């Protein structure tokens, strides 16, 4: 059986990639995808731990997360489309209207 640490390390790597994606990439569609990546990294950690301790709780939470992620993706993409129609850009550096 695959050791639990493999799952956790993979989860950490995926999460870190997600964080860096949000912080570094300028395209907000990519940033949204990076957020999805972080959510799935967390899902992986939940599943792995749930299996280790033989509990269903983690799996249930993952279903909730997937549901919320779907809604979030829908709302997020809706916002981005609206934003693009108004500003004709998806570059985060150019979307700084609420600044000093």
């Amino acid at each position: 059986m695959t050791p639990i640490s493999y799952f956790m390390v993979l989860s950490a790597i995926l999460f870190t990639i997600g964080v860096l994606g949000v912080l570094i990439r300028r395209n907000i569609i990519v940033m949204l995808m990076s957020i999805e990546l972080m959510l799935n990294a967390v899902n992986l950690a939940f599943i792995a731990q749930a299996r280790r301790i033989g509990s269903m709780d983690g799996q249930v939470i993952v279903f909730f997360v997937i549901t919320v992620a779907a809604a979030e993706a829908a709302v997020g993409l809706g916002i981005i489309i609206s934003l693009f129609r108004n500003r004709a850009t998806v570059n985060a550096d150019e979307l700084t209207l609420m600044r000093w």
Partner: protein
Amino acid sequence: MTREFPALGLILLFPLIGVVFNIFCGRRAGRVAVNIVAPALIFLAFGVSLIAFAVLLTMPRGAALALTLWPWIEAGSFHVDIALRFDALTAVMALVVTGVGAFIHLYSDGYMAGDQDYARFFAYMNLFAFSMLTLVLADNLLLMFVGWEGVGLCSYLLIAFWYDNPEFAYNGRKAFIVNRVGDAGFILGILTVVWALATHGVWTVTFSGMAEHRAMLRPVATLAGLLLFLGATGKSAQIPLYVWLPDAMVGPTPVSALIHAATMVTAGVYMVARLNFLYVLSPQAMTVVATVGAVTSFFAATIAIVQPDIKRVLAYSTISQIGYMMLGVGVGAFAAGIFHLMTHAFFKSLLFLCAGSVMHALEGEQEMNRMGGLRHRMPITWLTMLIAALAISGIPPFAGFFSKDLVLAYTYSSGQVWLWVLGTITVGFTALYMFRLIFLTFHGASRVEPAKAHYVHESPPVMALPLVVLAVFSIIGGWVGLPEGRLWGNAFEHFLTPITPTIIPGPGAAIAGGIPPSVASAIALALALIGIALAWVFYLQNPGLPLRMAESLRGLYRLLLHKYYIDELYNLFVSRPLFWLSQFVLFGGIDAGVIDGIVDATGLGVEGSGEGLRRLETGNVQHYAFVYLLGVLAIAAYYVYLVMG
């Protein structure tokens, strides 16, 4: 012995009713109503005072009437009542204030006949009577202080009564500010007394309570006496705080008569007499009081000789005469000082009212150089003023002779011969300046401006009546204090002695190596006669002589005319430095620099830090996310630290 006497409250209530009536209904009620109500209420207060006096006479010597109205201050063991006390000393003061005050109110009916602001005037006058009666009826030092401040306020309001003249308003402020200096001393004196008693566990400010525990006051007697006397020099216009009184003459003349001659300015003398138990503990303080009195008396009399303004002559004369009273109480002859206070109230208010009558006839003229020869046109004013002048000059049998003689006799028998010499010389000066005034105003050729000459007239009866009444008292007022052994003797002093015991040998006692008392008295009388004779020579016989003398003694004349340049000296050494200090140190340095600096720095600091911090709000969502990440990491690190220990 003390007897509860509820009617004492009426003495205060009547003037207070007048204040309320004049303020709220005066203008609507009209001139006639105000002219009746305002004096009538003071007459009523006078009537109640007379009744109280009559009751007091039926009681044993040294007794008092009392009335406790309500508790005032309750702070632990410190307890002060609004309480009144009517003993022999208060009786004299209350009768003078209400009696003389009532006739001056009556006179004001005529004097203010042409003024539109009669209601305000009488409101202030009634308020003054109320405050002054509070001062003299108070049975404790704090309530007395309330009256003390009240009369100061009324003095200010009435000096600046015609406030649309900037000079008058300025003089009102001057009086008020100079009095503040004195009052600061007064309140420090009160605190010193309270503190000295409190350190022994005695919490009282009543006069009887303080007198009872007088032994505890001994260590602070000099300090407290001098501080309280500083208050007296302000209120009673003595050196060094007399400068406001001559300028106070810009107020209406009845005000000068009532406040700045008869009553308020004598409050300092009353205070010293009232606190005689404190002052006798400190010979040093007594010496200061007596010396200041004698020097002021002489000093002011010399200034009065050359002043051209009729009211200013009387103002300096008042300062000089209060000096006599201070001399009397200062040598320990408290009753003699109060005696002179009483006779002075009669003849000095009469002098002012006569001066007012003259000004009334001459449309406000105050320069004696533009008077003269008024005797035939104003016989009543002339005769009554002559009586007052004889009284103040100390010619028997007029009132002033007996009181002044008693003060000087006590001064002499106290052994302070130099003060006696000063006081006796001043008698001569007094006669000189007073008859200069009489001769310049009423005798000789008329120098009245032709435009006004046809208008000169005797004052109406409402003004003449008070003159006559006060003239009668200026004659007979002194007869209550005859020399011992003559008729009923010195009844006045016997009446007061239980309240204000005289602490020096009687005026009959000769001092070792000195002249007999009767000779001392004769010298003063001779000097007074010489003074009158000199005035006659200078101002009637030989009218050109004063000018020639002024020419040959130019330096001295200018010194006197400019009042020893005291106002200028005060400006140079007190007002200007204070102004400079306020302008450049307190305002420029402390206020604009430090206080405003702190305020401005607070504002600028907030603004500056905001200016810096708002740069953090870049609007770029990734920057926020980064900061958020740092926060998450910090919290995570904290929990890791907790788990790992």
